[in-house]
């Protein structure tokens, strides 16, 4: 391994290290909540390893507990993960030159944190070679993936021993709101989130969790439309 590749790998590790504070507790919480939902340790681990996308795992878990139909659960949870299409698009020009096997492996590890770390690095250093970029990518995975699996396992193992007084039922809503809040960085994002909340409450009587799907479609349309309207008004507003 050459020096430049080793240093790119290490820079990747360092760049995603701060995400550890969020990833660890989030995975731990998933293990606990999934165990309380009646999954055994093997099922929890299979869930975390095969899906490897926290927000959609919580969404699927909640809808499975409500006994929604499989198709509705899949549509909702996959929609949560659709943002990763953007990650895949953004990484293709940088990492698309790697071999098919490497790309297949990188796709598995393309999560919020590795994307965020790579996006910043590749923007800042356009002169990086392909092997350096690949090394940086895998470096950025090192602090995240093993922790995700280990903390899921830890959560699954301690899950049933947490008494109800700890009000863990509310840890999921709090975590989700905390993840969402920093995403509200523009007025269209705020409008989208507000429509999502109001519509989800209004349509919560719809059967099989379909109310959330309706709310999500309305909220996405509201966000996109208000963005278009603000762009049109933009030049005049100065």
């Amino acid at each position, binding site marked *: 391994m050459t020096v430049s590749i080793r240093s790119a790998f290490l820079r990747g590790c360092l760049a995603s290290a701060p995400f550890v504070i*969020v990833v660890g*507790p989030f995975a731990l919480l998933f293990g606990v909540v999934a165990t309380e*939902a*009646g*999954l055994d340790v093997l*099922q929890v681990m*299979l869930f975390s390893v095969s*899906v490897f996308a926290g*927000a*959609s795992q*919580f*969404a*699927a*878990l909640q809808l*499975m507990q409500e*006994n929604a139909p*499989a198709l509705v659960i*899949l549509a*909702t*949870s996959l929609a*949560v*993960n*659709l943002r*990763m*299409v*953007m990650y*895949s698009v953004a*990484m*293709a020009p940088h990492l*698309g030159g790697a071999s098919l096997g490497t*790309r*297949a492996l990188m*796709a*598995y590890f*393309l999560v919020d944190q590795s994307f965020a770390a790579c996006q910043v690095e590749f923007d800042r250093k356009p002169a990086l070679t392909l092997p350096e970029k690949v090394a940086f990518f895998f470096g950025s995975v090192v602090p995240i993936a093993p922790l995700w699996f280990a903390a899921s396992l830890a959560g699954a193992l301690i899950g049933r021993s947490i008494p*109800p007084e700890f*009000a863990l039922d*509310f840890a999921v*809503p*709090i975590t*989700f*709101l*905390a993840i*969402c*809040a*920093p995403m509200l960085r523009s007025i269209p*994002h705020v409008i*989208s989130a507000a429509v999502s909340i109001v519509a*989800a*409450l209004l349509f*919560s009587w719809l059967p099989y969790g379909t109310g*959330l799907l309706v*709310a*999500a*479609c309305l*909220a*996405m349309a509201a*966000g*996109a439309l208000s963005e*278009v309207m603000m762009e049109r008004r933009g030049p005049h507003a100065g």
Partner: protein
Amino acid sequence: MPVDPLLYWIVVPALGVGTYVIRFSFLGILGNRPLPSALRRALRYTAVAILPGLVAPAVLWPPATGGEVDPPRLAAALVTMLVGIVTRSVIGAILAGGATLYTLLWL
């Protein structure tokens, strides 16, 4: 309500494969094709459009209190949101929300 095992074995493998296909799409096969701008615009809002709606009913009508509006839980949710928006810190928001919930439940 506990998760039905059959439902688990249908949903989790399909969600795993579907999520992988999403990640692999452009990096793996589609390459440097540009995304239509309307689609790109809609994708920006997927997470914000779903996650708040997913938790809204549980915030207003928590199952833990039998669906009755619960002031500590409602206050905790509002504090989480507010601290998250102001500080942009996920951990800060979680800690503030958790502290609010436990303080009010304990009072």
